[in-house]
């Protein structure tokens, strides 16, 4: 069995049968074309994303993998309208959102088509709001009456395997794993077409990691598209249909999870695959990794 926190090696177990090598040809729920994002002004202006092109079909799970500072979170923030694109287009559920005003973004967000799960659930849940209040917030923002909103969040708790008694608790009174599942439930409350998860399991222990990944696997079967952002290839490999590798703001490799893991083309992807920890890490790979690092730095 592959440990959820470890990447399957090229010679490791076969990826799951449920993943599709050919993504659905249906209208993509997310289409990014030639996306550039810059931070800073004038002399401090620096490029964070360059010419990123990616599409996610309904029900598809795409993993975006890269090291810290590679632009993974910026990509997610650009899709959510939290940072402006310098060039390129972003289309969400068929709607070009690139030039959207704040009011248009608010309307789109209230529809709940795209949802986002933060890396740290403790900070992404208001410490003064109960779990019920946090879960109901997206519905209240859509104008759903409070009573109805509370009725709609109960089944969600079962879906993320949380007991109903947690509804009256504050985020600080529940465990880290429970908090992350609350964050996932909050993302699902508006029945989104696309859920972007930023390192959803990186702060969790193995048991909770397995549970969250299992919830995401079940979510795929309902037709929700998932974008899974992670620096850990292992977390993504077990669940993603496709993997996109982001390196220094550029997508250097995109392919099916099987291809990216078994036949990595870019040196950075090869380094990621060979660096993934396993229970049987071969010391002999060290030389190969050093060579790849040297190739990347030159």
């Amino acid at each position, binding site marked *: 069995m592959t440990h959820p926190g470890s990447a399957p090696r090229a010679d490791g177990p076969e990826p799951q049968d449920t993943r599709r090598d050919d993504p659905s040809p249906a209208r993509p729920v997310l289409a990014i074309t030639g996306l550039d994002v810059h931070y800073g002004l004038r002399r401090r202006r620096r490029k964070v994303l360059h010419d990123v092109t990616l599409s996610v079909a309904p029900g598809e799970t795409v993993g975006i993998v890269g090291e810290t500072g590679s632009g993974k979170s910026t990509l997610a923030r650009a899709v*959510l309208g939290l940072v402006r694109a310098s060039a390129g287009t972003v289309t969400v559920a068929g709607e070009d959102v690139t030039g959207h005003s704040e009011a248009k973004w608010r*309307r789109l*967000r209230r529809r709940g088509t795209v949802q986002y799960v*933060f890396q*740290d659930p403790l900070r*992404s849940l208001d410490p003064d709001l109960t779990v019920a209040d946090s879960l109901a917030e997206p519905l209240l923002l859509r104008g759903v009456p409070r009573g109805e909103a509370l009725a709609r969040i109960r089944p969600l708790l079962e879906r993320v395997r949380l007991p109903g008694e947690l509804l009256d608790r*504050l985020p600080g009174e529940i465990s880290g794993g429970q908090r992350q599942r609350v964050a996932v439930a*909050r993302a699902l409350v508006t029945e989104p077409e696309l859920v972007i998860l930023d390192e959803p399991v990186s702060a969790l222990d193995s048991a909770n990691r397995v549970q969250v990944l299992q919830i995401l696997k079940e979510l795929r079967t309902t037709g929700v598209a998932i974008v899974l952002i992670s620096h850990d290839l292992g977390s993504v490999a077990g669940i993603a249909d496709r993997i996109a590798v982001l390196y220094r703001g550029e997508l250097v490799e995109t392919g099916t999870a099987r291809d990216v893991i078994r036949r990595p083309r870019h040196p950075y992807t090869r380094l990621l695959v060979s660096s993934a920890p396993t229970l049987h890490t071969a010391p002999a790979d060290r030389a190969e990794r050093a060579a790849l690092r040297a190739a990347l730095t030159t």
Partner: protein
Amino acid sequence: MLRRVLSLPAGRIAVAILTVVALLAVLGPVLAPHDPLATSARTLAPGSGTHPLGTDYLGRDVLSRLLAGSRVSVLGSLEVALTALVVGVVPGILSVYLGRAFEWVTLRVVDTLVALPFLLFAVAVIALLGNGITQAMLVTGVLVSPLFYRVSRAATLTVARSQYVEAALIAGASVGWVVRRHVWVKVLPPIAVALAQTIGVGFVIVSSLTFLGIGVQPPEPTWGGLLASDLGYLSYQPWAPVAPALLIMATVWACNLLADAIRDVSGEAGRALVAHRRLRAGRRGRTEPAPTGGAS
């Protein structure tokens, strides 16, 4: 918040004292046993059945003057606090959300207010609006408002950059929603602490001004005025300033005690208190015998 404050002994004492003071302000003139302005031949008399706190140098009943003077002190201190609250908190919170131009202007206004000499400003305002305790307290409130501006702005900045606010924005929240649902709750405790302290400071300022005879013209009774008139006759009646001084001291002390209690029950400490109570309630529930029979 009030329930949490009342769960602390310090909070209960503070609220009890301030409730008494508030009642004195409302009912004081009615409760006064004598006319606070009526003079008599019994000057500087010690406490007795007719005059429990004695009489002053004009033979006026000290207790009646103390009760009648409560309203000026309470209203004056509330005026300071409410002026500072409105002038400071509203722009303090909005400065985070209404763009850089608004932020820059409000910051410069606050810097100016901090640098403004109190007396010069007070004289200018009183010259414009006329002499009176209301005008004096208005000036004081405006000059105290930078404290509220900075406290509310700092608290709002911390919350505005938090992930749960970003999560709310991603869910489609407007600025108004974010302020009402997420910011206000976090900003309220530090503001409440500042407010309680400012009310205390307001009492001291009102008492000081009336002690100096500014704002309220004699023979109108005030706590500060009582203190001043009694001080002139210390050699005949050394205990005379004790009652007004104690009243001022107890009120200011209660305000500070309340500020401490609010600080102790807000934020992380407050959440811990709620969690502790819930745990205790849970334990009590478990130790109670299970109900037998009845509808489920």
